[in-house]
């Protein structure tokens, strides 16, 4: 069964460093998302992406964050200058776009980002 994959599974970085989190969405899906979950808190929406541009972003998704689909399969989240509070599990998700208003979003296993 097709699934969303994410790499790396765990990333440790120093405050102020740039990180790139990678995702390979399900191959025929058209909509891509990033969410994050700070330890012990709710899963929060960050951004959605369609047709090579951002469709919607949350207040969390400030200028330090960017997303890109560099080729036909990868979808990346870049954090330009990491802060301690960016430590979280980051989930990539994708949906097919065939069910308007009722598309299932399938999530990857997550990347645990630890900022020291």
């Amino acid at each position, binding site marked *: 069964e097709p699934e969303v994959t994410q790499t790396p599974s765990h990333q440790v970085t120093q405050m102020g460093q740039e990180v790139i989190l990678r995702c390979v969405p399900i191959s025929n899906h058209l909509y891509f998302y990033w969410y994050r979950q700070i330890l012990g808190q*709710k*899963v929060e929406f960050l951004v*959605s992406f369609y047709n090579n541009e951002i469709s919607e972003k949350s207040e969390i998704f400030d200028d330090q964050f960017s997303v890109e689909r560099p080729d036909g399969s990868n979808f990346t989240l870049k954090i330009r200058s990491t802060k301690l509070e960016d430590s979280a599990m980051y989930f990539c998700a994708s*949906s097919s*776009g065939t069910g308007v208003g*009722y*598309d299932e*979003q399938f*999530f990857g296993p*997550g990347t645990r980002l630890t900022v020291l």
Partner: protein
Amino acid sequence: SQQGEEDPQALSIQEGENATMNCSYKTSINNLQWYRQNSGRGLVHLILIRSNEREKHSGRLRVTLDTSKKSSSLLITASRAADTASYFCATGLLLTGANSKLTFGKGITLSVRP
């Protein structure tokens, strides 16, 4: 506004019993999706119910949706120890096209005792 608030926060049952988890929300939705998360792992999609549906089944799972009460329930029948996990409801709101945003609750911790 807060969406997708589940209750109870924690539930402990014996293997073989049924587990019922509830979710309430405050604003209009297009769909509601339930997910499972094993400790520190990814989110596994369980089931989606559309806003115009009242009940849906998938294997041992039964989901109901009452849009007038803005609530949903997830029933797991004949629970197994392997069902031990956190369960989240997520309300889906259509943004543009088929693009939608999920808003998650805090989750319910289910423990199934062997």
